[in-house]
């Protein structure tokens, strides 16, 4: 069980206090919004794509420090990156960015931004899976969560 120092590493608090890429894009190429019904966290991702790369990304939403910091970190990581690379980002990549162990409930907070981003870049209307996985113990799988 992680103590508070583990759960709120300085980088998480830094992104929570000073979120990167927070805001909205007017008429974005891609806009996707999702929520975590269990705790009311909401994330919206706005993306502009140029030449197969993420030209611009903004997120907005409400929620706990984990969900908002994860969104901020993710935005920072993907700006300028090719779409193909963004599609390959896995849950483990996000957990690595956060750098903490998350219990089954907080895992959903930590992965909401990725879920939103991926559904957005794949142009999906519904997330195809991995949700149930998040509720269970953290699986030891290296593969990405390709739909």
């Amino acid at each position: 069980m992680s103590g508070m120092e583990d759960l709120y590493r300085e980088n998480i608090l830094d992104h929570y206090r000073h979120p990167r890429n927070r805001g909205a894009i007017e008429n974005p190429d891609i806009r996707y919004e999702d929520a975590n019904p269990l705790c009311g966290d909401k994330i919206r991702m706005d993306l502009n794509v140029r030449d197969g790369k993420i030209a611009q990304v903004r997120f907005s939403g409400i929620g706990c420090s984990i969900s908002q910091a994860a969104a901020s970190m993710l935005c920072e990581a993907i700006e300028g990156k090719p779409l193909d690379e963004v599609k390959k980002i896995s849950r483990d990549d996000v957990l690595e960015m956060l750098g903490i162990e998350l219990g089954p409930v907080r895992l959903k907070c930590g992965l909401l931004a990725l879920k939103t981003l991926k559904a957005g870049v794949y142009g999906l209307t519904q997330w195809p899976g991995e949700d149930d996985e998040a509720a269970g113990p953290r699986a030891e799988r290296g593969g990405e969560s390709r739909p």
Partner: protein
Amino acid sequence: MTLRTQGSGSAPAAAGRDRGRNEAATGRSAAPTPAAERAPTPTAVPAFDPGTVRRQFPIFRAPREKPLLYLDSAATSQKPDAVLEAMNRYYAGYNANIHRGIYEIAERATAAYEDTRRRVARFVHAGSPREIVFTRNSTEAINLVAHAWGRTFLQAGDAIVLTEMEHHSNLVPWQLLAAEKRLELRFIPITGEGELDLETLPRLLGDGRVRLVSVVHISNVLGTVNPVGELVRVAHGAGALVMVDASQSAPHCPVDVQALGCDFMAFTSHKMLGPTGIGVLYGRRALLEAMPPFLGGGEMIREVKLTGSQWNDLPWTFEAGTMPIAEAVGLGAAVEYLEGLGMDAVFAHDRALAAYAMERLLEVPGLKILGPPAERRGGVVAFTLGDIHPHDVATVLDDDGVCVRAGHHCAMPLHEKLGVPASTRASFHCYSLPEEVDALVRGLHRARQVFAR
């Protein structure tokens, strides 16, 4: 006061006297206790020592790395030795299926199961044990009424009145029924203080189309004690039945279905010191008798032919399949334990702690308490802390061993009405201590430091 801690257990006491099926309606209580309504002043209530009570709950005696400061009793309560021991006595001593075997331990098991029914009937002052139906939980009890009563007796154009402060368990079953039968759902709004706006009742009930009012007795978020007796009078006057969700009241205060005058009531064992897996539906006998079964299967039938069956008598017609027997035994022990403490005393204790918590919480800058003042609520205090998300609050508190609920507490429409996405909730039971409130307040100060922006 002296605590009746454990006793001989309810189970074997009535062994060999399996009279369940033919028992006359003798469960009536001689002196109905006034129901918890408009929050009576707890005067001259014999107090119990919560420290002594706490030591009778093994979870608080268990050695652990950090203290267990449990402020989430509205989600589920902890269990005293008496309950665990009673269940263990059943499994170790007379585990058998009920209402079937004619050997000794089967008769003992049947007697224990039916003994709990009688005990629960007395606990809520039902007119007869036959008015007590065992379910899985409150949710199933409400669904039972929606299916067996609602689908049979309601028709398109009828209306059901709910409130804006309902738990999802008292919303969704009616939404499903409304969609199926084309019913109208109406809602009693809440006031700024988080109480029901009763002035809307004439408008909501005026057209005579309302067949049922289903209302929570004590809100699991606001702690509001709703004036159920008054609601029943108005609803009955308009020709509507009343169902009460007593999930947060039956475990904490005296409840008297006859004094309240309600037609149905639901509550659940695990919030009242008993095990999970068993809940209770109280229904007025005439209503239950008119209702078709909810689930089909064994035990709920009198005679089965390949193409049709005759139903069993009340209440067994609503108890299909093997029921949670050990859980019923545990529930019986839990009710006995609560009666030993005295429900007036339990309520006074919970409310005193809530009042203390409200006073202390207001010391925390930026903290906003949801719901009415202490004198009009039960042992539940939900709050927001500036713009710090309740999940973050709860995580910081957890670091100190303080267990609270964070989220919407299965009351999303209420949170929407209150204009907050989520809240943090502290709730109490007989084993809760002021020291736990103190730890909560310390943790909240710490959360403010961690999340200062």
